[in-house]
């Protein structure tokens, strides 16, 4: 069975969505404490089970192993053998984080280590079982094979879990030559096919019967036994696997001592109605990431052109007005396409926020919970990321503020409740954050949210605080509904940061790696540089932009290769960052209209202003230089 890339991608996307839901549900479960909502816990168990089953079928061994261990813990919670206290939930959340990492970084999975999570989860499973069952995690059970010569040796707990889930345990007997090779199948396909019909607890190859290189001239057969836990009956399994009934052994009475009908109240009743991954509502963009970035860059270019045309002191010209209107029409559609790809429900951000605050509470002992409303509003995911940072910082400051007030007034520590409401109007998305657990706050006492205000300013947004009699301290976040976001590479010239739109950058060369005459040459008053076997002009943006001196160019540390359409040129800069930057383009170019080299300004995360060079202008200059 070939697993194609689409199937894998679908699995990873769905598992990702599912894990985010599990994360949220685990925090809800934590809040329930000892009063466990069994069907709710069963839902979480089922989601984890679906992730494990998928991984099993697709041969993703690390995901399968870790999700199996998480499922074991969830099974104990479902059976009320384990209370989901903060420590237990913490382990489960850490396991989910690692699973998320495995599903997100699918191509570097083998470098991701799961040992720590595995050991912790196994330890927890063992620790919480009643004394008479504790040993089952480490206690090895011998399950003899039909040939009587070999036996499976399995931790009793694994059998117990399968029985608790209402499954039957079977031994399947295959001959890898007769049942696989002679049927033009491969062992891998056979194993994956079996895994689609149950959980492979263990398997065993009779390697003795294969013999050695000397004796094994013609291979008689390779016996292979599988210990399978399946919800199917013997007859159903024989039909599904197309295997002789004599080769499927049902282990009926072997585990009588492990069967306890009291123990499976959740799992039997609820957990196996749906064995496939639950369909999540994952918002999938019409564009893939690469296309999205490309379109995003083009939309930025178009925005610059529009902005430039609007603010250039050109003589009144009806053709200019027509051009502006046509660009606006195209830009609106273009921006809508990009926005659709980048938009995500606020609930994604609020989930991250809930988790951040939960983890802060777990580590510091200052616990808090947030109720969010308006989570279906859509926001740009890049803006949401920065908003979550600012919100997390603000909430932690509020938690500490309230905790100090409690301490000073001799009150006990308590969980602080927060309310976050999100509304939108035509221009803005507005978030209001306050704590209904407000307490008497000294007049004119405010939070120090300077850092968060700077963060918000960098995305063209505002954060204000005030005191209201009915709500106490209220933080109000105001974000514009639409942004022009620039994906670019930051470069530095004369201690000034410039952002070159991502779409214009071809690459970099360090001055130290270039040699004169071979890579750099002077032609008249200009310098040219060799890029991909082609000599292209060097342009500079520094202070004395009009006085191109050869020395000034030669003393720059980096050359950035750019293009506009077919025009290529090098930019001489002091420093170039390897990283990409998302910055919000500020519509300030009207103030800069006298400077032909700039089309806009960006506010960076640290509050610094970056300038966006007009690449079209530079392409034009490059063309003149060439001539």
């Amino acid at each position, binding site marked *: 069975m070939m697993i194609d890339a689409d199937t894998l991608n679908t699995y990873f996307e769905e598992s990702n969505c599912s894990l985010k839901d599990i994360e949220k549900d685990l925090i809800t479960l934590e809040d329930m404490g000892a009063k466990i909502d069994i069907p709710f816990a069963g839902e979480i168990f089922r989601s984890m089970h679906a992730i494990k089953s998928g991984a099993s079928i697709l041969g993703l061994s690390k995901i399968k192993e870790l999700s199996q261990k998480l499922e074991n813990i969830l099974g104990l919670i479902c059976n009320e053998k384990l209370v989901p206290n903060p420590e237990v939930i913490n382990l489960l959340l850490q396991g989910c984080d690692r699973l998320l990492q495995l599903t997100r970084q699918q191509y570097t999975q083998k470098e991701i280590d799961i040992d720590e999570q595995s050991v912790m989860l196994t330890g927890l499973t063992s620790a919480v079982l009643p004394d008479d069952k504790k040993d089952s995690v480490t206690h090895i059970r011998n399950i003899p094979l039909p040939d009587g010569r070999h036996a499976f040796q399995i931790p009793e707990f694994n059998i117990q879990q399968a029985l608790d889930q209402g499954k039957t345990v079977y031994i399947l007997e295959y001959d890898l030559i007769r049942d696989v*090779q002679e049927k033009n199948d491969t062992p891998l396909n056979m194993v994956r096919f079996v895994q689609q019909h149950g959980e492979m607890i263990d398997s065993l190859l009779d390697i003795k019967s294969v013999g050695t290189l000397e004796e094994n001239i013609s291979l008689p057969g390779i016996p292979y036994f599988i210990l399978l836990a399946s919800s199917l009956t013997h007859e159903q399994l024989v039909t599904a696997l197309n295997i002789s009934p004599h080769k499927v052994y049902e282990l009926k009475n072997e585990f009588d001592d492990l069967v306890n009908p009291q123990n499976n109240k959740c799992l039997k009743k609820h957990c196996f109605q749906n064995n496939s991954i639950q369909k999540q509502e994952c918002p999938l963009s019409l564009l893939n990431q690469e296309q999205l970035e490309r379109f995003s860059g083009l939309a930025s270019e178009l925005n610059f052109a529009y902005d430039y045309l609007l603010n250039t002191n050109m003589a009144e010209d009806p053709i200019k007005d027509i051009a502006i209107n046509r660009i606006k029409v195209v830009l609106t559609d273009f921006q809508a396409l990009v926005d659709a790809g980048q938009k995500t429900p606020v609930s994604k951000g609020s989930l991250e926020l809930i988790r951040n605050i939960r983890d802060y509470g777990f580590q510091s002992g200052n616990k808090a919970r947030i109720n969010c409303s308006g989570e279906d509003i859509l926001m740009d995911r890049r803006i949401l990321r920065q908003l979550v940072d600012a919100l997390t910082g603000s909430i932690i400051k509020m938690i500490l503020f309230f905790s100090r007030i409690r301490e000073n007034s001799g009150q006990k520590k308590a969980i602080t409740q927060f309310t976050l409401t999100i509304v939108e109007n035509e221009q803005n998305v507005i978030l209001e954050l306050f704590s209904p657990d407000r307490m008497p706050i000294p007049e004119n006492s405010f939070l120090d949210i300077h850092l968060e205000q700077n963060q918000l300013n960098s995305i063209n947004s505002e954060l204000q605080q005030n005191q209201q009699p009915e709500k106490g301290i209220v933080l109000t976040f105001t974000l514009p509904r639409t942004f022009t976001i620039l994906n670019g590479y930051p470069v530095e010239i004369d201690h000034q940061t410039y952002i070159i739109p991502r779409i214009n950058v071809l690459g970099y060369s360090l001055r130290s790696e270039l040699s004169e005459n071979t890579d750099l040459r002077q032609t008249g008053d200009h310098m040219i540089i060799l890029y991909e076997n082609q000599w292209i002009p060097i342009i500079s943006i520094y202070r004395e932009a009009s006085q191109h001196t050869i020395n000034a160019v030669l003393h720059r540390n980096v050359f950035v290769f750019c293009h506009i359409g077919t025009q290529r040129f090098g930019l001489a800069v002091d420093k170039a960052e390897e990283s990409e930057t998302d910055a919000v383009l500020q519509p300030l170019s009207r103030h800069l209209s006298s400077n032909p080299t700039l089309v806009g300004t960006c506010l960076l995360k640290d509050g610094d202003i970056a300038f966006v060079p007009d690449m079209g202008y530079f392409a034009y200059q490059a063309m003149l230089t060439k001539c």
Partner: protein
Amino acid sequence: MSKKTIAPRKDIVASMVADFKKELQNMIVEEGITELEIDLSGVEMVDSVGLGAFIATHNTLSQKNGKLTVIHATEDIFSLFKTMRLDQHFEIHQG
């Protein structure tokens, strides 16, 4: 103790196993190799007969107190060997 690495560079399937096994046998019996490393770079598939070749090599080396190591296995082959618990008999490293 002498060590050698062999890299078949093609799928370990029925059509090539007879020659492959002869080569392995020569190394172990005639050259006296006891630490054998099979490099699976470029190997995408192992069928049942191929699997038998690995097991027979392991059995032969075990009789001579030798050791088999498989390196650079693809994720699929690594997963197959792990599922079949062959990693309990000889070392397998993913590529």
